[in-house]
């Protein structure tokens, strides 16, 4: 708490202490409340801690000393130190309620993005444009974005420390938050409610871009997958359709349209695989397909026991899904 202040001074821009590096009006409101209350708490700690320290230093027992005067209390003192905390609490209550309004305004009728938590990845749908993606959420910088939070299974929690509050996804009870990034930047988000085996790897990226870049991104994301450019990729697509991949995944422009696992239409455009566990490189994709359980133990995708050539063909195809 006290050192909060200290660390703040030490590393405002390094990005280590993310909660203390707010990048949106919402997060900043919470940060300001944090600073105010930290100052109050620090004062209390110094006063009461000082009282204890004073007692410990000043009133040591020495051999042979008789027992001191037996003071059993003082009503005035008790009254004073009951009333002062009352006042502090009242002040904090009003500060908190004011912050709530700024950090968490009421939702609009239609959200900009619907984020759905799955064991163990995030699905993001943009109802206004129709974009569907996973684990990498692009937003236009400089404007508030309304996010509706849902879950396909258990509780998850959506948390991007620099951008604002966290919020649980609850079955049958959609929640809502606002996020905003003042400047173009990329942020790491995590699932912060324990959700099973791979709760640790349920990361996502928020990519805030200038509005024109964001629109360009949306446009590419809406394009269906193009036909495989070479034989190997074509065999990969065929394999994708023959094996049970299609039971879980969708690729716009092919027959695959299931929504159990992440949408793969633009898989190659995404930066990470397995909700953040590895970089999205051909080598890692190969490892993943060869046995996803090796890369991310417990992940819902089974090991299909593909042969090496099959893996290569699938990777060749997936790498075309820009």
């Amino acid at each position, binding site marked *: *708490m006290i*050192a*909060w202040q200290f660390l703040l001074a030490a590393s405002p821009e390094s*990005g*280590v*202490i993310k*909660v203390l590096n707010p990048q949106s009006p919402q997060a900043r*409101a*919470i940060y300001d*409340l*944090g600073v105010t*209350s*930290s100052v109050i708490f620090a004062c209390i*700690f110094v006063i*009461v801690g000082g009282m204890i320290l004073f*007692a410990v230093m000043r*009133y*040591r*027992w020495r051999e042979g*000393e008789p*027992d001191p*005067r*037996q*003071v*059993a*209390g*003082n009503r005035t003192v008790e009254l004073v*130190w*009951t009333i002062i*905390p009352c006042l502090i*609490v009242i002040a*904090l209550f009003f500060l*908190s*309620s004011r*912050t709530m309004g700024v*950090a*968490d305004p009421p939702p609009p009728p239609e959200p900009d993005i619907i984020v759905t938590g799955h*064991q163990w990845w995030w699905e993001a749908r943009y109802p206004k444009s129709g974009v569907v993606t996973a684990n990498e959420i692009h937003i236009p910088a400089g404007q508030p974005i309304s996010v509706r939070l849902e879950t396909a*299974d*258990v*509780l998850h*929690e959506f948390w991007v*420390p620099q951008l604002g*509050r*966290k*919020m649980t996804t609850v*079955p*049958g*009870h959609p*929640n809502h938050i606002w996020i905003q990034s003042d400047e173009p930047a990329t942020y*790491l988000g*995590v699932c*912060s409610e*324990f959700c*099973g*085996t791979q*709760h*640790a790897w349920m*990361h996502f990226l928020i990519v805030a871009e200038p509005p024109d870049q964001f629109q360009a991104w949306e446009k590419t994301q809406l394009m269906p997958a193009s036909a495989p450019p070479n034989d190997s990729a074509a065999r990969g697509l065929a394999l994708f359709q023959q094996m049970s991949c299609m039971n879980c995944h969708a690729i716009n422009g092919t027959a695959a349209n299931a929504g159990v696992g992440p949408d793969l239409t633009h898989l190659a455009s995404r930066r990470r695989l397995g909700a953040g566990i590895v970089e999205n490189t051909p080598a890692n994709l190969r490892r993943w397909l060869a046995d996803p359980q090796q890369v991310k*133990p417990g992940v819902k995708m089974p090991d299909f026991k593909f042969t090496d050539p099959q893996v290569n063909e699938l990777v060749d195809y997936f790498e075309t899904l820009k």
Partner: protein
Amino acid sequence: MNEIAQVLDRIGILTPEEREHWKMAWLSTVDHKRIGILYLVTGLVFFVVGGIEALLIRLQLAVPNNTFVAPDTYNMLFTMHGTTMIFLVAMPVLFGLANYIVPLQIGARDMAFPRLNAYSFWLVPFGGILLHFSFLAGGAPAVGWFAYAPLSETPYSSQLGVDYWALSLLVLGIGSVGTSINFIVTVLSSRAPHMTLRRLPLFTWMIFVNSFLVILALPVLNAGLVMLLIDRLLDTHFFLMPGGSAIMWQHIFWAFGHPEVYIVAIPAFGILSEIIPVFSRKPIFGYEFVAGSTVAIAFLSLGVWAHHMFTTGLGHAIDLFFIASSMLIAIPTGVKVLNWSATMIGGRIRFTTPMLFCIAALVQFLLAGLTGVSHAAAPLDWQTKNSYYLVAHFHFVFVGLIVFAILGALHYWFPKMSGRMLSERLGKWTFWLMVIGFNMTFLIQHFLGLAGMPRRVYTYPDLPGWGWMNMFSTVGAFIMGVASLLFVWNLIVSLLRGRKAADNPWDAWTLEWATTSPPPHENFRSLPPIHSRRPLWDVANPDRPDPVVGTKGEIDRVAPEKNRAGVIAFIISEIGFFGILILAYLYYNATPQSGPNARGLDLVRTGFFSLCLFASSFTIWRSEKGLHLGKHGRMIGWLIATIVLGGIFIAGQGLEYWHLFESGVSVNSNLFATTFFTLTGFHGLHVCVGLIALLIALGLALAGDFRKGRAPALPAIGLYWHFVDVVWVIVLSVVYILPHLR
């Protein structure tokens, strides 16, 4: 084997007469001192288990991307660590201390119900074994210590771990309620003459208040566990979609869970209130305020649970209510901290190991309290919740306050329990290693949380700062491990070779120091006069005794009858259980269900059977009257009538169930059926228990026992029977009558 008996004798835990049957001497004991020690030893064993789990957790987190343990193993480890430390360490150890000390502090010979006491204790190892048996039955639970639905439901946790977890917590919960009823009745009915409630030592006072919190809160958890088990075993949907509510589980769990924090914190407050004055050589500053603030904390703690749910989207209105109530609780807590500090000011502080631990607990708790307020402020909680900041906060409470206070208490009362002093040198080593290790482990975690590290992750990427902070924390944890080993070593060495302890080695003032160390069977040969809160101070300082506390009226007040007080306490404990079942019924039936519903029930038939049950309240009252007037035959006649009427009611309920089953309605048909069978079923179970008790009473009466004046059981059973009827009045109104009024 006789050598073992000799060793046991030498370290003072067997009397010479017991050498022959030394195994049974402890297994069958009903002596509160031995039960207390059994609690403590059990707690210590599980502390080792939970501690090893903690060290494995810290090993896994020492470096980024670690693969020391598998993800599911890690998830089992933190689930078992949390459950073990709370239910099998903190509670048993605090109950054990209270078991040993409370009867001594009030000058009693034993607890009010020694056999209930033994029963409550033995449920702890049984529950602990049940929980750990899950390792052999397909894997321990891996859902966190609060087992949030729907992750804890069959579709997402299909193995038996969660079932074992729920069953063992039920067992432990029943034991905790049993022992708390015992504390309440002991304090109310077994105090020595002149030991009025206003003269109670603060430790006893806090255990007394705390016991009410236990009997109010634990049954709420029991109701939730029962619903979870019904979901899992009978395929229903209390907390599962469609229809069920995951948030409902959180409400139930935290309605228990937050009071639970205070259930383990209030005894720690009691320990601080006992030890700090003794080693400051002054009475506690503001006894009334320390005692009164405990009551305030206990009350408020029942109304703050949803601050654990600020991120679930309850809405700002509800959030604001719980911000206010949660912040309010900081006031009585702050008053306590200030009173303890003021006790030291102007004193002559002796830095013995117990005092050092208590001063450390005070400072650590000051910090924990302040970071606690930052969780009460919902907007800050929106950021810090479920991060390592929260992990740091609650470990400051659980370790910084509670474990430190317990260590202080064990160093303080060990001479009384064993007749030997602990080594001060080892004690101080333990203290410094513990404090340094603890702050290394947990202080840094505040910053890990602010750096964005969520809790309950089995590993983490190598982000700036995360690696070294985690490593630092792990090193601290191992220093705490060394400190714990040193403490255990101190216990063993001192038991065998420690300096003999005098009756009152610390020059303390409460009654436990007025008897030998260890105390004889039934505790006291004679008691000093009791006029104030510090009887032994008055004895030692006849020239300046404490002011006399209390009036003649208070001293002459007659203690309530034990059985009656016990049953009343038990009935209070049922409020939470039936309250949750009734609220759940109302909640899940607020919107009409498709399929079977309450309008399909036969109100007339149930009305008739209900009349039988209500009539039985009258007959048992007549039976008691008969007993009171010494009319033996009349008493037996009315008793038989009561049993017959109760039997008719149960038969009627059986008939109703039969008709429902016939028409295809079963417990998992829909949420109406689920809640209906759960609520009426548990009421029926209570009626059956009452019938068994009545049959036993009838047997005793027919055997002529009551004529010999051994009849206090009947009014107690009568009270319970009335309670069962009152519950049925509510159930009848809610389930059968209410739907016809809409």
